[in-house]
C-alpha cells in the first residue's frame, strides 16, 4: 500500500510541476465552458413581456408590480384570452407571457398554494431560459420576502413552458458536450500521454523490473487523472448551474455516477492508446485524431446527428461521447432516472469493459 501511495504522489508531482499540463487540466475546462456559455449571451435587459391575469386580485397585482419594476422586464401588453398568447408571441415582440390562474389570491388563502404559468419563446432557447429563470427568482423572492415575512406560509408554484422548442435543443448542448470533450481530453489523452512518457524515458522499464505488478502501476498512474477529471466535471457542472443557470432536474448523485462511468471509459481508452504508442507524440496524435475530433464532430456536440449522412450516423454510434451526452442531457434537463437512460449506460459500461479487456491483453503481450 505504501508503495502505491508513493506512486500516486509521484504522479501528482508530474502534473503539478508541468505548467502545460496544469493549463490543460484546469485552464481549459473553465475557458471552454465560459466561451461556449458567453457566445450565447446571458445578459437580459428590457425584455418585453405580456401578462394574462385571470384573477386580477391584489396579490397578482403585487407580483406583476414586482416583475415590471425589476428592471429586466417591460410590460408590453395585458392579455385577456388564451388565443392572444399565441398571437403575442407570433408578433415577435413579446418574449414571455405570465399567466395567473383564476382566483389566485383566494386559492392561496384556502389551499396555501397557487400556480403561475410562465410561457417563454424558446426559439431563442438561451434567452427563454434566462428570462424564465429571472421571473421565477422574482416570484420566489416575493413569496419569501413579502408573504413569509407576514407569516403567510403560502406557496406559489411557477410552471415553466417553453414554446416552439420545448427540449431547448442546441443551447444546453454545450454543457454535456464540453464535459464529454474535457473528460476525454483529461482522462484519455493525458493518461495515454503520461504512460507513453514513462515508456519514452525508459522509466517504465525500471518500474516493470521492480516488484510492482503491472496492474498497480497502471492504477497508480490512472488515479490522479481520475481524481482531476472528476474535479473538472464538478467544476463544469457548477459553472453551468451557477453562471449559466442550466437546470439540474435529475438526481445529482446519479449525474455524478454517470460522469464517473464516462471517466472510467475514457481512462480505459487512454490505457489502450498508451499500449499502442511508445512516445508521447504518438499518444497525442492518436488521442487527437481518434478521440478529440470525432468527439467534437460526430457525437452530436456541434452538429446534430439526425442531419448527418447515414454513414456518419453509424460512425457516431460508436462514439462513447454520444451516449454520454444523451445521458447528461436527459438527467440535467429532463430529470430522467436510470429507467430512461439504462440503454446508454449499459453501452458505456460495455465499452469500458471492452477497452479495459483489450488493453490488459495488449499489456500482457508486451510483457512477454
Amino acid at each position: 500500500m505504501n508503495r502505491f501511495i508513493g506512486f500516486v504522489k509521484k504522479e501528482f508531482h508530474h502534473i503539478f510541476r508541468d505548467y502545460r499540463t496544469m493549463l490543460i487540466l484546469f485552464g481549459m475546462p473553465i475557458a471552454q465552458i465560459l466561451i461556449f456559455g458567453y457566445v450565447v449571451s446571458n445578459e437580459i435587459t428590457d425584455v418585453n413581456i405580456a401578462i394574462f391575469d385571470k384573477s386580477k386580485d391584489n396579490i397578482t397585482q403585487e407580483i406583476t408590480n414586482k416583475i415590471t419594476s425589476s428592471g429586466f422586464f417591460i410590460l408590453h401588453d395585458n392579455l385577456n384570452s388564451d388565443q392572444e398568447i399565441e398571437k403575442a408571441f407570433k408578433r415577435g415582440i413579446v418574449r414571455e407571457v405570465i399567466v395567473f390562474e383564476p382566483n389566485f389570491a383566494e386559492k392561496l388563502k384556502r389551499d396555501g398554494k397557487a400556480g403561475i404559468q410562465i410561457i417563454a419563446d424558446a426559439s431563442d432557447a438561451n434567452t427563454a431560459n434566462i428570462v424564465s429563470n429571472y421571473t421565477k427568482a422574482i416570484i420566489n423572492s416575493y413569496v419569501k420576502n413579502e408573504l413569509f415575512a407576514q407569516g403567510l406560509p403560502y406557496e406559489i408554484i411557477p410552471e415553466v413552458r417553453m414554446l416552439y422548442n420545448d427540449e431547448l435543443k442546441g443551447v444546453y448542448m454545450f454543457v454535456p458536450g464540453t464535459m464529454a470533450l474535457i473528460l476525454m481530453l483529461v482522462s484519455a489523452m493525458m493518461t495515454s500521454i503520461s504512460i507513453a512518457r514513462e515508456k519514452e524515458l525508459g522509466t517504465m522499464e525500471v518500474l516493470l523490473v521492480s516488484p510492482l505488478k503491472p496492474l498497480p502501476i497502471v492504477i497508480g498512474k490512472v488515479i490522479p487523472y481520475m481524481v482531476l477529471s472528476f474535479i473538472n466535471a464538478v467544476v463544469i457542472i457548477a459553472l453551468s448551474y451557477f453562471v449559466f443557470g442550466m437546470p439540474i432536474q435529475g438526481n445529482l448523485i446519479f449525474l455524478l455516477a454517470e460522469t464517473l462511468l464516462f471517466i472510467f471509459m475514457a481512462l480505459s481508452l487512454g490505457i489502450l492508446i498508451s499500449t499502442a504508442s511508445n512516445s508521447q507524440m504518438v499518444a497525442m496524435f492518436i488521442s487527437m485524431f481518434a478521440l478529440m475530433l470525432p468527439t467534437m464532430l460526430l457525437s452530436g456536440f456541434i452538429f446534430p446527428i439526425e442531419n448527418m449522412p447515414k454513414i456518419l450516423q453509424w460512425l457516431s454510434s460508436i462514439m462513447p461521447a454520444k451516449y454520454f451526452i444523451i445521458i447528461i442531457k436527459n438527467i440535467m434537463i429532463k430529470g430522467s432516472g436510470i429507467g430512461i437512460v439504462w440503454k446508454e449506460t449499459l453501452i458505456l459500461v460495455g465499452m469500458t469493459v471492452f477497452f479495459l479487456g483489450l488493453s490488459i491483453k495488449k499489456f500482457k503481450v508486451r510483457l512477454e
Partner: protein
Amino acid sequence: MLKHTENIIVVKNLIKKFGSFIANDNLSFEVKKGEIFGFLGANGAGKTTAIKILSGLSFPTSGDVMVAGYDVYKEREKVKENIGYMSQKFSLYEDLTVRENIRFYGGIYGLSGKYIKEKTESLLERLKMKDIQNSLISSLPLGWKQKIAFSVAIFHDPKIVFLDEPTGGVDPITRRDFWEMIYEASDSGITVFVTTHYMDEAEYCDRVSIMDQGRIEGLDTPGELKKQFNAKNMDEVFLKIAR
C-alpha cells in the same frame, strides 16, 4: 580469485524465439557472485532479449534460468526483489528532485520511509550531492544523473544489478568515475551484469561473454579471450567474432 566461487546466475540451454526468429540460441553460462560480468555483442545480437529474461520481464521459450537462486519461471517476484536495473536512458524522473527520485524508487521496492531517509542521507553525503538534493534531475549534467541512476538501482541492496549500456553518451572521465562506482559495488558483494559497446570497458570486467546472432561465441576473462583469439585487445576479439 576466491570471492567469485558461488554461482548467482545459472543459465542452461536458454532458447527464446519470436515466431521463427531465434533471438537467443541455446545460451548456457554462469555468473559468479560479486563478479563484474561483461555482456557484449553487436546490436541485434540478442543481448537485450537475454537481459529481459534474466530480469523477469520476459519468459524464455525453453531452458533453465536461475537468478539470485530463484527460478525465473516460478519465482519471478523473488527474482525482481533481488535485482536492480539501470538502462541506458538512466530512467530518472526529470521533473522530480534528486531526493524525490531516491524516495520514489526506494518506495517501490517496499523499503520503509525511515530506512530510505537514513540511507538517502548517507548516500547524498557519499556522492557529495547534499547541495543539489532538492534540484530537479533535469537541471543536472549527464554524469551526475548517471551516478544517481546507478545509486538508485542498487539502493535496495540487490544481489545483482543489470546495467544496460550505462555509459552511453558520457565523456571518458565521467566513464572512468562511473567504473569506480561499479568496482565499489562489486567489492561490497553486488554482482554486476553489464552490457557495453566500449571495448576498453570490456577490459575492466572480470569475465566477458560475446554474443553474435543469438549465440555466445566467446566467454572468459579478457586476458584469456585475447589469447584464445590471438588478438592484441578486446576490440580485435570482438571484430573477429562479429565478422
